[in-house]
């Protein structure tokens, strides 16, 4: 592997890891704060990708082509949907056993997949990256790196920073931190726990959808795209430690690196490597790298 290839793989690994972080950070908060196993989280990622595909023509027709506006609209829509879903389906799951959460969110996956099939069909669709991000940066004589992938990483980093500031500096963030480390305590503090749950859930949906939207030009949009991301994000959440945003970040990057280089170095066993990593880490630390923090 020469230097340019190595550099490209590194960039890919980081970009993939950061994207996973967007999805996993919401998932880990929903796990940690509400104690809900949400199998449907991957569907929100898929929903976002289909927003990027489906909203673009509307935006183009009404406001002229604007990728950013599509993102903003899609994000707002996703947050609204998340808010409504929490109210309709998740609010009564908190006191139920994990088993029933698994069952119900599995049902939700089926519903989302079928709605997607009814609304957008079962074909694979491409989504165009905006023209101003379409170029490539030359790294060596033969190899280039697409600007759009850098844009993905940049959006993820920016979102991560916003998340950091919200969680560290605001009252909402304080409640989230308290909730992730000790659920009972928050309940006894007289915080409006229902509202907190609803906000966290909606934010989680928004993050997953944002990830789906910005990934769409690279990944294309296709049926069942959510379930692949879901399983990998479970791996990330568990490695990082349930409820820990910092853990999710470290684990996402770790998984991104291991997966990307696994594919390059052992193409035969690429799928196995990530799960092997998870198994090893959990045997070393049965509660993940950063348990709640």
């Amino acid at each position, binding site marked *: 592997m020469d230097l340019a290839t190595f550099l490209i793989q590194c960039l890919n690994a980081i970009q993939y890891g950061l994207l996973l972080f967007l999805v996993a950070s919401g998932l880990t908060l929903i796990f940690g704060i509400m104690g809900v196993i949400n199998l449907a989280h991957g569907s929100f990622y898929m929903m976002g990708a289909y927003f990027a595909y489906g909203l673009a023509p509307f935006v183009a027709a009404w406001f002229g082509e604007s990728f950013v506006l599509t993102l903003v609209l899609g994000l707002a829509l996703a947050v609204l949907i998340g808010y409504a879903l929490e109210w309709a389906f998740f609010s009564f799951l908190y006191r139920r056993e994990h088993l029933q959460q698994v*069952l119900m969110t*599995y049902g939700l996956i089926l519903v989302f997949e079928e709605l997607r099939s009814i609304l957008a069909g079962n074909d694979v669709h491409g989504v165009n990256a905006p023209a101003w991000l379409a170029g490539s940066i030359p790294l060596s004589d033969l190899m280039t790196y697409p600007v759009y992938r850098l844009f993905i990483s940049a959006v993820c980093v920016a979102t991560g920073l916003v998340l950091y500031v919200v969680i560290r500096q605001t009252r909402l963030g304080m409640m989230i931190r308290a909730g992730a480390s000790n659920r009972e305590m928050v309940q006894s503090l007289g915080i409006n726990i229902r509202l907190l749950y609803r906000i966290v859930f909606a934010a989680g949906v928004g993050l997953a959808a944002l990830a789906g939207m910005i990934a769409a030009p690279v990944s294309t949009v296709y049926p069942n795209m959510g379930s692949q991301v879901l399983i990998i994000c479970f791996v990330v959440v568990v490695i990082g430690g349930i409820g820990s945003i910092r853990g999710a970040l470290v684990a996402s990057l770790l998984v991104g690196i291991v997966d990307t280089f696994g594919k390059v170095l052992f193409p035969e066993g690429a799928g196995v490597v990530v799960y092997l990593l998870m198994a090893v880490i959990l045997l070393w630390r049965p509660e993940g790298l950063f348990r709640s923090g």
Partner: protein
Amino acid sequence: MRFRFARLPMAFALFALVALAALPWLATPYMVDLTTKIMIMAIFALSLELLVGGTGLVSFGHAAYFGVAAYAAALLAPKYDAASLPLLFAIAVLAAGAYALVVGALVLRTRGIYFIMVTLAFAQMAYYIFHDTKVGGGSDGVYLNIKPELTILGWKPFNLDNGLHFYFFTLVLLAAVFVFLTLLLRSRFGCALAGIRVNETRMRAAGFPTYSYKLAAFVLAGMLAGVAGFLFAAKDGFVNPELLSWHQSGAVLLMVILGGAGRLHGAVVGAFALTLLQEAFASEAIFGSFAKHWQLLLGATIILAVALLPEGLTGVADEIRAWRLRRRDAGQSAGATDA
């Protein structure tokens, strides 16, 4: 415990056995074939119920043992000759058990959500081993062309190529697994597992090596899943990595929960309910052109089931019984204070 596994399930089991034995004379060949498939899934669900309901271990990777056994049967059977049924059966079940032993020894160190996720991870590992490498023909899978045969001194009591024979072979195995698990759950071993499910700390303090108990249950469940996996491979003669996928693990977990975890017959009811619902929703005769959106109806039904039947389909009877027991007890303790 006693009040849970005794009366009602036995009546249910006998009734179900008679109904299933009579089915081939009443139903179409398609229905017989479908029921064979469901019974295989019922054995699979029963094996998971030993973990979920019997021991309190929610495994989200149970398809791995099903798939490993199916692959073992397909890969180790001779190519141009019929394999010996008992031998191939034993190999498949032991292969599943061996994988369960390795995985169980590791995953039983974790608990709760982590346990759910690590079992999933190990199943995904097995999935990718068969999917990405040439061990089992990659994503195309492998064929088991000739059905295994049982020969006793030159006499062949049945022929698995015959759908009816296969049906009864599966029914006998389902009944055997059901009886075995019924006995197991009310034996000392089963009661110890129930104790571990409710309060593992207390069981250790009383002197039970709980890790060994859980590992034994895990391996046993893996082997029983192997029975189902063997049947699956023998029935369709085709094995592919999807048998180990998380969708398969999810589906079998769904059967257990939908039927009602904590009750053996719940697993069987769940296997029938889920498969038949799926068939019904996908049937154009019933739902016309909407049938191609069967997932929507199935998903909505599942969500409703969670909302309305938290104890699963078979839980309704138990809830009534528990309520009556509580009422009787409340009456008794009121009497005791008076005295």
